[in-house]
């Protein structure tokens, strides 16, 4: 950490000149430079969140009105079957993405860390979908999973003539199509983060475990993974905050269908806010999303900051 030298230097200088600038004007250029940040932080992030929470207790329809109804919007929200489906879906999507992207991403990173050939090529291949838009990802998978002409037809051509794969128009499975597309796009990122984590581990670990004759898989499982705990936690937080935000992918891939069976909370908010002109309901839903994120975020931030503080003192 650097000391804020500049303040005192400016003060000394102006004192020498015989006039002391008022406190607010000291370090003025930096304060002016920080005005956009302060505005965004206070008006944009804090102000807008508070506004949304405030109006989630009103019966606002297409325009915000201060007609307070207590928790009525929340009661309606939790009674709504569409919201329940959205929450179930985000849970399915979340659990599947977390489990699969973490395991596959970690395995890919381990495989790439074995002094293999063409490491760069493989890494480029696994990460390129991450550069694409969710809309692009959604539309490609819509085509691949097309029941008439997609992969299903290829399987029929091989000889399984009765084969049916209609995930996209199946109420049960449509959400898994979103999972598959999401994994295709996001696992590369997990791999890249895990690879960076593996590369950050002290190489002497490997020498020591070889001397002790411990097989590689056990070294990974019992020594490397525990050492990579911070990387895992950070990755977890990134994936989790991404899961809550998923919106474009559903719009492009299934548009929430069939029959609203693949709705997600972010889309619920959008639809009620801009499509159905039911602002109060949309804001109540968004507040629930915010609280969920805070439940994930606050323990993590607490851990991070307390660790840093301990590291500094110890």
């Amino acid at each position, binding site marked *: 950490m*650097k000391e804020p030298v*500049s303040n005192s*230097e400016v003060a000394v200088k102006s004192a020498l000149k015989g006039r002391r600038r008022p406190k607010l004007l000291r*370090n003025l*250029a*930096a*304060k002016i*430079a*920080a005005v*956009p*940040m*302060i505005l*965004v932080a206070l008006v*944009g*992030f*804090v102000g*807008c969140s508070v506004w949304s929470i405030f109006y989630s207790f009103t019966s606002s329809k297409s325009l*915000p009105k201060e007609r307070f109804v207590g928790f009525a919007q929340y009661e309606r929200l939790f009674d709504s079957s569409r919201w329940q489906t959205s929450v179930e879906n985000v849970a399915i999507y979340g659990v599947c993405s977390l489990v699969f992207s973490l395991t596959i991403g970690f*395995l890919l990173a381990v*495989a790439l*860390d*074995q*002094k*293999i050939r063409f*490491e760069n090529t493989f890494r*480029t*291949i*696994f*990460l*390129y*979908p991450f*550069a694409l*838009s969710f*809309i692009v990802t959604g*539309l*490609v998978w*819509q*085509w691949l999973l097309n029941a008439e*002409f*997609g992969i299903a037809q*290829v399987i029929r*051509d091989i000889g399984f003539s009765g084969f049916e794969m209609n995930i996209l128009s199946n109420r049960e499975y449509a959400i898994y199509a979103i999972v598959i597309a999401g994994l*295709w796009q996001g696992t*590369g*990122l997990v791999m890249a*983060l895990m690879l*960076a984590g593996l590369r950050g581990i002290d190489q002497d670990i490997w020498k020591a475990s070889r001397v002790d004759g411990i097989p*590689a898989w056990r070294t990974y499982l019992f020594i490397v993974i525990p050492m990579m705990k911070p*990387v895992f936690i950070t990755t977890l937080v*990134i994936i989790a*905050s991404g899961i809550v*935000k998923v*919106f*474009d992918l559903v*719009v492009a891939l299934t548009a929430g269908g069939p029959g609203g069976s693949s709705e997600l909370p972010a889309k619920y908010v959008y639809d009620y806010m801009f499509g159905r002109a039911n602002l109060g309901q949309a804001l109540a*839903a*968004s*507040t629930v*999303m*915010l609280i969920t994120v805070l439940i994930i975020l606050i323990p993590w931030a607490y851990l991070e900051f307390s660790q840093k503080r301990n590291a500094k003192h110890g």
Partner: protein
Amino acid sequence: MVKSIHEGMQGPHGPKPKKSLSARNIVLYGFLLVAAFYWLLPLYVMIVTSLKGLPEVRMGNIFSPPMEITFEPWIKAWDTACTGLYCEGLKVGFWNSVKILIPSTVISIAIASVNGYALSFWRFKGSEIFFTILLFGAFIPYQVMLYPLVIILRELGLFSSLGGVVLIHCIFGMPILTLLFRNYFASVPEELFKAARVDGAGFWRIFAQIMLPMSLPIFVVAIILQVTGIWNDFLFGIIYSGTTNFPMTVQLNNIVNTTQGVKEYNVNMAATLLTGALPLVVYFISGKLFVRGIAAGAVKG
């Protein structure tokens, strides 16, 4: 010793490889090849489908290469594909995206670089608190802030305009960019800054003459981050830009997911490729810098 430290910093770890055709290597490369196949398949299918005529798409197998290569779908996707209302193709969306992309990237990076510099060298009372709030803001679901921002833009007279989307991109790009620049400037030796101060240089002069020239790599990382991020945006484009200014992603979705007419899968895939082309090119050219951008944003955050 020095050499081993150096190796520890970069290059693969893991146990030493044995013979080239051991069972271990077969499993290893087998796994990687299967995974690479899965990851490349969609790109391959996109390209192949976009080069086929519609009858061939309907007849054949999505994996088979085109018997007769045609660029018709590409031309149609660019020039005449219909979004339900208009039949002007993706080109309108492309130019809208460009008009959104350039000012958003320039303004957001300009603000964030100065800001990161101020946060590293010119801290004032409360600067860290605002920065922490900013970082927390990066995790707030956008849905919470969508409507109040509509009101703010309407008050500013920017709702449903290109200026409005640009402002929104600057707001939501700020946390990650500021973090990126702050972390970079934090690694600049303090003595350099102090020496310039002693020589009498002020806030802007130190920034322009000392910090800017030495921070070009981080600017490249920031540009990559913003270009791909803004180009790929859908949510802000559809809400804040207004129907005539829809960016390419929104138009693409409108073209492909219109319910009317015959589904032209080849045109759809050409349109999808056209939309994905810019970020893909950026990704393939930038290579390691792209990874560095996301790692800087992700791991250090």
